[in-house]
Structures are given as structure tokens and as C-alpha cells.
């Protein structure tokens, strides 16, 4: 599963996002407020991609190159 990080332009804001018949707060504390935050974002990525960047995992090749 991908990890997600709040975009810089929303770091000092709070967004009420309506998903279905509920609304959710998106802010810098999102990952601590919601357990399974990344799974939630991934499930609703079509709506939430506006607010989050995907955090790419470091490749193995890069890790190996640092371990000589």
C-alpha cells in the first residue's frame, strides 16, 4: 500500500471533505486522528488526491548502494 502525505499548501488549513453522507476533516493531524489513514486515502483517492501526495518508498537498489 502507498503512503500519503498532506500537500504543503494544506499544512496550515483544515478541509471538510464530504464522502458519501459523512464529512471528514483533512489537516496535518489526519494520520494521527484516523487509524488506517493511508488505506482510507487510497480507497477515496479520486476525491483525496487533491490534498495528498503519494510518498514513494525508497528503492532497494538505492539502499544496497549505501551498504558496501
Amino acid at each position: 500500500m502507498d503512503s500519503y502525505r498532506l500537500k504543503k499548501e494544506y499544512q496550515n488549513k483544515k478541509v471538510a471533505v464530504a464522502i458519501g453522507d459523512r464529512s471528514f476533516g483533512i489537516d496535518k493531524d489526519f494520520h494521527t486522528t484516523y487509524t488506517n489513514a493511508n488505506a482510507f486515502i487510497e480507497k477515496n483517492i479520486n476525491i483525496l488526491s487533491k490534498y495528498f501526495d503519494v510518498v514513494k518508498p525508497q528503492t532497494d537498489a538505492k539502499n544496497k548502494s549505501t551498504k558496501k
Partner: protein
Amino acid sequence: MAGACAAVKKAGGVNKAIYAGSVKDLTSVTFADDGTVSALTFAVGKQLVKYVGRSAKNTASEPITAEGEGNVNEYVHTVQPVLYHFTQAERDAIEDLFALDQAFFIIPMRSGQILVYGLSKNVATLQDFGLKLSEGDDAVGIELNDMNAQTCTMAGNMLHKAIIYNEGVTYPNNITAIEAYLTPAT
């Protein structure tokens, strides 16, 4: 607790043009770190609607029902626009407004402040609040000076005062930003 005297010697009253929308048509509301509304996002095909009346006709208020035996202070967001109409399309637009059970209003004031009535500032309860029609009339009298307009009261119990809209920071930029929402979202 802090106070300021910035409100002293500012003009009172509501402008003749106000904007209305449905909370159900919003997909997100962005709040700046000072708590003001800084952006709205509408679902595809949805938009704000502008009602242009006359100066010194529209009113808005937020009477408070104090906590009493309950747990919270209630702020009754109340908007009383006077909706002038002549065409069938204008009459239909009034019916569309009255059909909403979770309306919100963006109301520019003569002071330069722009207030949002009917939107929750609690991000988890955006879809649990809004204003709805409580009464109205469109009486036709006998005097030549009788107005051809629908009066109405849109009201809803909220947990806070109306929120300041400040997407563009300055009044002209805020109005420009609001007017952009008059086009259906794509």
C-alpha cells in the same frame, strides 16, 4: 479572549446581491488557519446561485438561545432575503431555493465583510447542518408601490456564529472568487 475595535465606524447592512447553495452539493470546504472559509468545492454540475434584490431589503441575523438546561448555546442562523421576480424562470429559481433542506448563504455586507450562514465550522459535521425555509409570503396588494417580491425566512440551528468568507483576502477578490462558483463545477 480578545477583542478589537475594527468594527467601529463600519457601514451596517446587507448588500442587494446574495448567494445561495446547498450543503449537499459541496464536496469540500477549506478553512484557513484563522478559521475563515478559504475555498469551496462543488460536486460536478453543481453551483452557487445569485439572487439580486434591492438595497436595504435583505436581512440576516443570528439570535442566540442560551444553554439553559441543555448543553450548548444555539445560534439560529437566519437569512431573510427579498426575492424579486418577474419571469417564470425567476419564480422557478425561488421554488428551487425553498426545496433545499440544507441551504447555505454567502452574504456580502456593506461593511466589506462577507459572511457564510448555514455552514458548520466543525469539519466532521459539514453535512449535518444547513438552513431551510421556515416561512414566506408573496402577497399582492392594491397599492401601485407594492413590491413584486417573495419574502421568506431561511433558518437553521447552528453551534456557532456565521463564518467569515475570505478566499481572496480583499473584498473585490472575494466577490470574484464567489462569482466563479456561479458556473457549474466540472
